């Protein structure tokens, strides 16, 4: 299996500008077919998408062209790690690190399924070996080291490989004196690797400690959802923290808190907007503005690498 080859395919798809398909009028389509399609789950697969927020039926290609944001309500659908990289990086600028690292089964863990079986299933469904893709690339001409997590791979959970790939990427950034961008998207630590997973929180945070000492910039991008051990480690340690619109971000999951305190939580609890209000993030940014915002941060930061001491 060649992960990089797989990347290129999806890469090009995302940058296609010339529409080869018919542009549809969503309103017309809605009248004619919406009800019928909404009731049939299978039919929508591949071609049609129903917005999980407002129920709008959207033509799949149109949704892709709109960066997977609902036209009607602005709901941000999740991006895969490769879609995320395609969103942020300049065309053909990506060089992947450590594409061939994969998890072992150190605990010989079995719950309802065996861990290796879960891994294989995730690898087959995503075409990735693990829940994060790391490497270097350019954002509007700026060289960066970047990592993007993938929720489709075992809920983006952090096991040994996720921790190791991120730590290695951060170390590369220190060596090459580059800023780091990590796009988090994770349910937290991976239960199936037990304490080895938990310790990846320490590993990634320690690596960021060294990046900090080297005077290098770290931009943390929180996407939907970012929770648990990822929130309690690298995701919260950015010099600048950006939350994507509508992202759910928190340490403890909503359900667990509701069970503990036995009351319903407010609607906006743990949303990007909630975090901004409580001073936990620098800004909330819509997906369409994310690349430009990161570019602007890098512009404003440019020349400051290594600080005054480096001058």
């Amino acid at each position, binding site marked *: 299996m060649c992960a990089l080859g797989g990347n290129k395919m999806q890469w090009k798809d995302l940058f296609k500008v010339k529409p080869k398909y018919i542009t549809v009028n969503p309103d017309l389509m809605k009248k004619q077919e919406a009800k019928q399609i909404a009731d049939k789950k299978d039919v929508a697969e591949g071609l049609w998408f129903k917005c999980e927020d407002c129920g709008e039926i959207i033509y799949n290609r149109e949704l892709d062209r709109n960066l997977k944001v609902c036209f009607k309500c602005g709901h941000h659908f999740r991006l895969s790690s490769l879609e995320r990289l395609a969103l942020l990086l300049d065309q053909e600028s990506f060089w992947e690190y450590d594409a061939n690292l994969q998890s072992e089964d150190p605990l010989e863990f079995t719950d309802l399924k065996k861990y290796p079986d879960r891994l294989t299933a995730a690898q087959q469904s995503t075409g990735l070996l693990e829940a994060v893709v790391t490497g270097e690339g350019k954002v509007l001409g700026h060289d960066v080291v970047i990592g993007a997590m993938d929720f489709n791979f075992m809920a983006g959970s952090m096991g040994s490989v996720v921790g190791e790939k991120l730590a290695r990427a951060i170390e590369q950034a220190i060596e090459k004196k580059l800023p780091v961008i990590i796009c988090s998207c994770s349910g937290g*630590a991976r239960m199936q690797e*037990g304490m080895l997973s*938990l310790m*990846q929180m*320490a*590993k990634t945070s320690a690596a960021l400690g060294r990046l900090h000492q080297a005077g290098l910039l770290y931009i943390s991008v929180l996407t939907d959802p970012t929770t648990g*051990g990822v929130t309690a480690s690298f995701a*919260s340690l950015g010099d600048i923290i950006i939350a994507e619109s509508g992202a759910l971000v*928190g340490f403890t999951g909503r359900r667990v*808190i509701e069970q503990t305190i036995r009351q319903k939580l407010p609607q906006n609890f743990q949303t990007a907007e909630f975090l901004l209000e409580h001073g936990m993030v620098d800004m909330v940014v819509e997906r369409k503005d994310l690349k430009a915002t990161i570019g602007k941060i890098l512009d404003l930061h440019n020349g400051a690498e290594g600080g005054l001491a480096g001058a």
Partner: protein
Amino acid sequence: MLNGILEFEKPLLELERKIQELRAFSKEKGIDLIDEIKTLENKAIIMKKEIYSNLSSWEKVQLARHPQRPSTLDYIKLIFDDFLELHGDRLYGDDKSIIGGLANLDGLNVTFLGYQKGRDTKENIVRNFGMPHPEGYRKALRLMKQAEKFSRPIICLIDTPGAYPGIAAEERGQGEAIARNLLEMSLLKVPIIAVIIGEGGSGGALALGIGDKIAMLEHAVYSVSSPEACAAILWKDASKAQQAANVLRMTAQNLKELEVIDDIISEPLGGAHRDYAQIGSMLKAFLRENINCLSEKNIDNLLEERYNKLRRIGAFTQRLEE
């Protein structure tokens, strides 16, 4: 569990009760039963060894959570010659689930931090069941930074089900507070020793668990999530906690094998709660020996080793290109 008696201890307690009865009977009737009593006593010792050297993961979880198990406050009395508690994070409040302060260990001044659970409901309400809010972690960080300023070694005792899952904790940045401690502890220019004395629950425990020496008491447990939470998530059934405890590899022995911890500190036969003085002196000896050893090291080497230790943890392979 009733009155702190655990299920697996019952045969032993039954035998101990029989021995007592036999003694009383022998005394009352004036019959010489020394041989019989001796035989039973030997049997009890063998049984004790057998039970406590073959505890299942779930039995260890129960022992680690035993209400009579010595806590941070007990160890402060057992280990230190002097202790002065310091309060507050200077930002929001004082979290009573983490105790911090200055201590004297055989003439050496140290900064001490420890999670504190309660023994009964009343104490648990005060201590929030040993589950800190962000201000607890931030108090700990403030005191650790102070330790660095004055070159004092840091000792952390860990015993917590986890960070508190509540609205206020989220509003004040529970994730950030834990993350910040992980980053800062990896860089602190003083020796750090962390010991899990009871229950080490998830990121909430790890937040004081970075160090140059990480040890666990023999029957302590440390896990990525509580067995109950793990069972609820993976089996969709919280009653599968026993099974979860087993697969999570959360005992001191498992974690030494996985190279997550450096050392295991032996407990008195039957567990730490059976003999406070003995576990106190064992822990004290461990701390003294390791602080001495770590203090002799050059600080740059110490930090390099601390970093490398974290860097090594994990299991993965390189897949060859096909």
